[in-house]
């Protein structure tokens, strides 16, 4: 028997340098108009600007399909695939050993809404409660996109999915409030329609320690049944109408609204996606919800302003 029987591919493996600037490499097979892909690009650029590095920890979702097939990968940084519910637990172990060995770089979970709002919520909640030194980014396309478009608890009311063929009845879960209630150092929402705000928030996250949660509104033309060219415009409308406000919560206690809605009617947002059938959307209720959402956030930001 030889002294070692480790497969040759493990013994003399070449070094593959990282490239944060090119976190998502060209040649990946993601859909046109995919918000997650734009988000990855923006994340990579923000990391490169800050001179920081990262290890991605990705559960089952489009994000890990993005890597492509062995032995190639679309990711320009170290990337670990985990089971659906486990990214924040695996990341806890990775970050622990990084910190014990005083190594640089961020450990970033990159997970869809299924892995965040649904199957991974207990794991995420526990990691937040332990204030693990990780960044958790949920790219929220409001659907189980990887399996072909089933409802998640992030799917908004009225949206048709393959498991809500007559439109979802329940409202979207308010994950930001859930995460803020854990009193984590930093929670914020992101939009690919607001790249400067996106970069600022990544920068804030990079300079904060402990659990950081970022929620990215991530258009999915396949699941939303929208024009790929409309993706950025759709999430811009979501911010402008108050459907998806851009704000930050520090220590679960103080609030800052980053982009004020301009009074745009959310009707346009619904009309441009075929997942919403006009007759199934109660536009007045949607308008009221936007107004209530912003009213509540304004009250919080006024009562508990983030002094930043």
């Amino acid at each position, binding site marked *: *028997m030889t002294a*070692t*029987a*480790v*497969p040759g591919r*493990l*013994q003399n493996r070449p*070094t*593959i*340098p*990282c*490239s944060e600037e090119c976190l998502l490499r060209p040649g990946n097979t993601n859909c046109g108009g995919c918000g997650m892909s734009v988000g990855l690009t923006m994340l990579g650029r923000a990391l490169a600007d800050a001179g920081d*590095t990262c*290890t991605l*920890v990705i559960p089952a979702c489009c994000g*890990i*399909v993005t*890597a*492509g*097939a*062995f*032995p190639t*990968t679309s*990711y*320009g*940084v*170290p*990337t*670990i*695939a*985990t*089971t659906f*519910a*486990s990214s924040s*637990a*695996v*990341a*806890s*172990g*990775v*970050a*622990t*050993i*990084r910190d*014990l*060995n005083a*190594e*640089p*770089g961020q450990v970033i979970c990159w997970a869809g809404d299924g892995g965040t709002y649904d199957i991974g919520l*207990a*794991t995420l*909640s*526990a990691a937040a409660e*332990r204030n693990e030194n990780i960044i958790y980014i949920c790219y929220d396309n409001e659907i189980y996109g990887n399996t072909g478009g089933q409802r998640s608890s992030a799917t908004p009311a009225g949206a048709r999915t393959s498991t809500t063929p007559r439109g979802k009845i329940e409202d979207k879960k308010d994950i930001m409030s859930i995460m803020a209630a854990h009193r984590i150092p930093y929670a914020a929402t992101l939009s690919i329609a607001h790249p400067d705000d996106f970069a600022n928030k990544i920068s804030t996250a990079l300079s904060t320690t402990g659990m950081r949660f970022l929620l990215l509104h991530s258009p999915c033309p396949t699941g939303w049944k929208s024009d790929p060219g409309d993706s950025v415009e759709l999430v811009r409308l979501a911010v402008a109408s108050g459907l998806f406000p851009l704000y930050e919560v520090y220590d679960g206690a103080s609030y800052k609204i980053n982009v004020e809605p301009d009074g745009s009617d959310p009707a346009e947002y619904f009309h441009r996606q075929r997942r919403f059938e006009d007759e199934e959307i109660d536009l007045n209720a949607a308008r009221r919800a936007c107004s209530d959402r912003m009213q509540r956030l304004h009250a919080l930001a006024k009562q508990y302003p983030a002094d930043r």
Partner: protein
Amino acid sequence: MPVQVITGNHAAGYALSVAGEANRTARGVACGIYPITPQTEIVEYVAKFPFSKGRVVPVESEHSAIAVSMGASMSGARAFTASSANGLAYMAENFMVAGYYRLPIVMVAVNRTLGPPWNIWADQGDTLMLRDFAWLQFYCEDNQEVLDTTLLAFRLAEDQRILLPVLTCMDAFIVSHTQTETALPEQTDVDRFLPDLDLPHRMHYDEARTLGGLAWPHEGLSMRLEIDEAMKRVPDVYQECRESFTDIFGRDPGDVIQRFGTDDADLVIVASGTMATTAREVVRRRREAGEKIGLVKLKMFRPFPDVALREACQSATRVAVLDRNYAAGAGGIFWQDTRAAFQGHRDDVLIQNYLTGLCGGDVTPAVIDEILADLTARAEAGDPVWMGIETGRETLQ
């Protein structure tokens, strides 16, 4: 080496802790922990241990406990955890992943009945449910064996020829909560026995590799074959680890199967865990009375030691396989693998299955005698025999 009167759980907690501490000169140690009766004392022990370079992460579930350990292991640290019964069932998805990722994690499992009905007593069905997931499995019969096997498990798991996780098992309460004299090795000796962990496929923060992405069928198949090759090396590598263990600690941790009186035996009992302790006493008594009866204790179940088992049963014409587990619709799991080990090699052995001690029942010397009487009297092998069912049936009526 100090000898203390401690429980099996304490022995396991001690072994996991000093093994973890031994990696302080390398990338350290981390583990996720979660309590479940009857293994809770193990995770309490490691939570109290003052690791020089380590962290114990108390998580919200068994599924996450091993996930934290996997994250640590992927990062090149030593990692372990402990669980039992329904906890193992809940952990199963990530348990499987640890094996296929070739992570040398060590887990101590206290064998407990899977509910319902609610039951905290010994039954091996929990770890045997996980038998096909690229983990090595060892079944121990006393506290010293738990401690020694757990230490040896790290050496074996981390050997560059193996790189597979190891499960060390003990019977609920009979071992986990029973105090016996146990020799506790010194940290300095453990440091000598367990070299710094060097995991060849670990993640590096400055290398752009993707671990666990999609692989095409021919590549996935090759990776499964590599696991098979590693499994086949286990018996030889185990002997090396065993010799080194004996040199350093002055005590033999025991072979993968342990024979007692098998050289001339007509009848052989195949048993594992504490059933083997009881069976050995019965065999000893009856051999003194002149009967040609032997015992094979199966310590290692994965990989299955088929060659050693056949050798041990060379003189036997009748074999009783005792199973403290039941695969519904099939029978005892040790029995199935024992039959498979003989298939194509010998067809002159009567191999009979006895389901005993299930759901925490006692396997007493009287039960062993009853089994031997049945084995001696029968003309041919039949369906698995359920032992000790009369009283339970009465209550159910």
